[in-house]
C-alpha cells in the first residue's frame, strides 16, 4: 500500500486507541474514593461551596455525560481546570511540556547516534576486544535504571568532578526570552550563543542518563544484526565480487541490520517518555513530569488525565514516525499485500 495510506490508517487507529484509553482513565479516575469537589474547595469550606464546585465541575451528572462534556471540551482545546494550580490545564501543559520534550528529543538523538556508533563498531570487530567491552558496558547500562544513572552521573560529574551542572536547565544569571519554550531554539532565535551553549551544557547529563539504557540495547541489536547478516549469501555475493569493504559494511550490511533496532525504537521512546519523569526529579528539571508528579501526589484528576493523554499522543505520533521510517528502510513491510 502507498505510504500515505499507511500513515492515514495508523493515525486513525491511534486516535481510536487513545479515545479508548481516555475512557478507561476517565472512568478509573471518577470511580475512586475521594471527593474531588471537596479537595478543590478545601477542607474548611462550607458544604454549599462544595456543592457549587461539584455542579461546576459536572460531578453531579452521570458518568457518560461527564465524559461527553469532557470530550467536547477537549476538542475545543480545553483540558479542564486544575484544582490545584487553579488555572486551566491546557495552560499548564503549554508551560511545562516543551522543557520535557526538549530533553526527550536530545536524549533520543543521543540514543540513535550512540547506538549506531557502538553497534556498528561491535559488529565490525565482532568477538574482538572492542566488541566484548561494548557488550559488558551494554549489560551494565541496560541494568541500571535511568534514575540510577541520573543520580550516579550527577554525583560523579556534577558534585565530585564539577564538569557538568547539577541541576536546572540554565545557569542563574542567564535567561532566554520564551518563544517556543525550547531553550535551544529560543536562544538561537535570540542570537544568544552563550545561552545556547549553557543550555546544551545543562542538557548533557540528564539526556545522557535518559538515553543510555536504550542506546545500549539498540547497540546490541544492531551488533547482532550485523553479525547475523555478515554470513548471509547476499553479503557473500558482494564480497565474492570484490566490492570494497567499506561499501559492503556501511551500505549493504548496515541497512538490513538496523531494521530490527529501529523497530524497537518505538519501545525506546516509550522508555524515554516514561523515564523522563524520574530523571527530571533528580535534576530538578522544570518540566512536564515535575508538573505531573505534583499533580499525581495532589490527586489533581484533570491534570492527571491530561498528562496521560498528552503523553499518549506524543507516543502515538512517535510510533507512527518510527513505523514510517521502518517501512522506508524495509520495503517488504509496506509493499507486501496480505497473503503474498
Amino acid at each position, binding site marked *: 500500500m502507498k505510504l500515505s495510506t499507511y500513515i492515514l490508517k495508523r493515525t486513525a487507529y491511534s486516535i481510536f486507541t487513545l479515545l479508548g484509553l481516555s475512557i478507561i482513565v476517565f472512568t478509573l479516575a471518577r470511580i475512586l474514593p475521594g471527593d474531588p469537589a471537596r479537595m478543590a474547595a478545601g477542607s474548611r469550606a462550607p458544604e454549599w461551596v462544595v456543592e457549587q464546585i461539584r455542579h461546576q465541575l459536572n460531578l453531579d451528572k452521570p458518568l457518560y455525560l461527564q465524559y461527553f462534556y469532557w470530550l467536547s471540551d477537549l476538542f475545543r482545546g480545553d483540558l479542564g481546570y486544575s484544582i490545584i494550580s487553579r488555572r486551566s490545564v491546557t495552560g499548564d501543559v503549554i508551560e511545562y511540556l516543551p522543557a520535557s520534550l526538549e530533553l526527550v528529543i536530545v536524549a533520543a538523538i543521543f540514543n540513535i547516534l550512540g547506538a549506531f556508533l557502538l553497534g556498528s563498531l561491535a559488529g565490525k570487530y565482532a568477538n574482538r576486544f572492542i566488541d566484548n567491552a561494548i557488550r559488558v558496558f551494554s549489560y551494565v547500562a541496560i541494568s541500571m535504571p535511568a534514575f540510577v544513572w541520573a*543520580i550516579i552521573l550527577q554525583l560523579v560529574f556534577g558534585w565530585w568532578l564539577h564538569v557538568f551542572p547539577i541541576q536546572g536547565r540554565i545557569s542563574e544569571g542567564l535567561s532566554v526570552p520564551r518563544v517556543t519554550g525550547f531553550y535551544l531554539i529560543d536562544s538561537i532565535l535570540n542570537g544568544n550563543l552563550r545561552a545556547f551553549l549553557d543550555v546544551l551544557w545543562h542538557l548533557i547529563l540528564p539526556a545522557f542518563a535518559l538515553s543510555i539504557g536504550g542506546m545500549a540495547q539498540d547497540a546490541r541489536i544492531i551488533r547482532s544484526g550485523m553479525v547475523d547478516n555478515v554470513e548471509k549469501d547476499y553479503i557473500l555475493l558482494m564480497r565474492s565480487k570484490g566490492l570494497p569493504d567499506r561499501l559492503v559494511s556501511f551500505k549493504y550490511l548496515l541497512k538490513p541490520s538496523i531494521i530490527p533496532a529501529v523497530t524497537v525504537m518505538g519501545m525506546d521512546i516509550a522508555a524515554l517518555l*516514561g523515564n523522563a*519523569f524520574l530523571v527530571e526529579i533528580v535534576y530538578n528539571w522544570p518540566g512536564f513530569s515535575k508538573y505531573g508528579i505534583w499533580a499525581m501526589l495532589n*490527586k489533581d484528576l484533570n491534570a492527571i488525565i491530561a498528562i496521560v493523554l498528552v503523553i499518549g499522543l506524543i507516543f502515538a505520533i512517535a510510533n507512527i514516525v518510527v513505523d514510517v521510517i521502518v517501512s522506508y528502510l524495509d520495503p517488504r513491510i509496506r509493499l507486501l499485500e496480505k497473503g503474498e
Partner: protein
Amino acid sequence: MAKLSLLTIDKESPRWRSFRRSWYRFRRNPLSLVGLTIVIITIVIALAPEYLAPYPDHAGYYINFKEAKQPPNIKHPFGTDEYGRDIFSRVMFGFRFSMTLAVVVLSLTAPTGILLGLIAGYHEKTWIDALIMRVADMFIAVPPLVLALSICSILPPNIMNAMIAVSLMWWPWYTRLVYNTTVSLKNEYFVQAAEIMGASKFHIMFREILPNALGPILTKLTLDVGWVILIGASLSFVGLGAQPPTPDLGTMVSEGSKYMPEYWWISIFPALAISFIILGFNLLGDGIKDALSGG
C-alpha cells in the same frame, strides 16, 4: 482417538534431548552463569533476610542518632542512614520487597495475558480477537511507566496498589506475544491435524500451541522480573509505592537523595542493589534466549 501426549518427558524423547541441548548451550556461556548466580543469590536473600542480615531489626522503625550517617565501614559495609539504620541490612530486606512485587505481579499478569493471547489468537479475525487486542492496544498506547504512575496516583499510595497498577499495565505484553505466536502456528499442519482429529479448542490451545510458545514466554518472564522491579522501584522513588519506613529499594534511594552529595551512600547503595538484581535477571534471560534459539 490418538492420545496427543506432548508433555510427557521421557529420557530419549525429542523434548528431553532438546532440553539437554539447550542446557548445554546455556552452560557454556559465562554470562548466563553469572546471571544465574546473581539470581540465586537474590532469591536466597529475598527468602530469608531475617537470618542473613546483620541487623534485622533495622528494617522497620529504629532510631539511633549516634550511629546516623556513618560512611561505609566494617560494622556497616554500606554505611548507615539518617536514622542510624544499617543500610546493608535494609537493602537485604529490600530484596524481599522487590522479589515479592515481581512474583505477585507476574503470577497475576502472565497467566491472564497468556490466556487472553491464546484465545484471541485462536479466534483470529473474529470479534473476540478484535475486542481483546484492541483493549490490549489501549493499555500499550501509553509508555508503561506513565500509565503505572497515573494509576498509582489515583489510588492511595501503598505497595498493594503499586502492585495493582503495575499488573494492570503489564498483561498486554504477554497477550501480544502469545497472540503473535498463536496466529503464526494456527495454520501449521500439526494444529490442522489436531482439528481434523476432533480435538477440542481447549486441547489445541493448551497442548499444541502453548508448548511451542513456552520458550519466548520463559525468556520474557525472566527478563520481566527485572523490569517489574525497575518499575516498582521507580514508583516508590516518586513516592507512590511503598512508604517509609518500609525498606523498599526505590524509597531508600528517594529518601537518601536528600542527603546528597555528602552522605552519598544512603542513596547509592540501594540504587546499585536495584541494578544488581536487574543485571542478574537480564543476563539470565538473555542466556535462556540464546540457549533456546541455538546459540
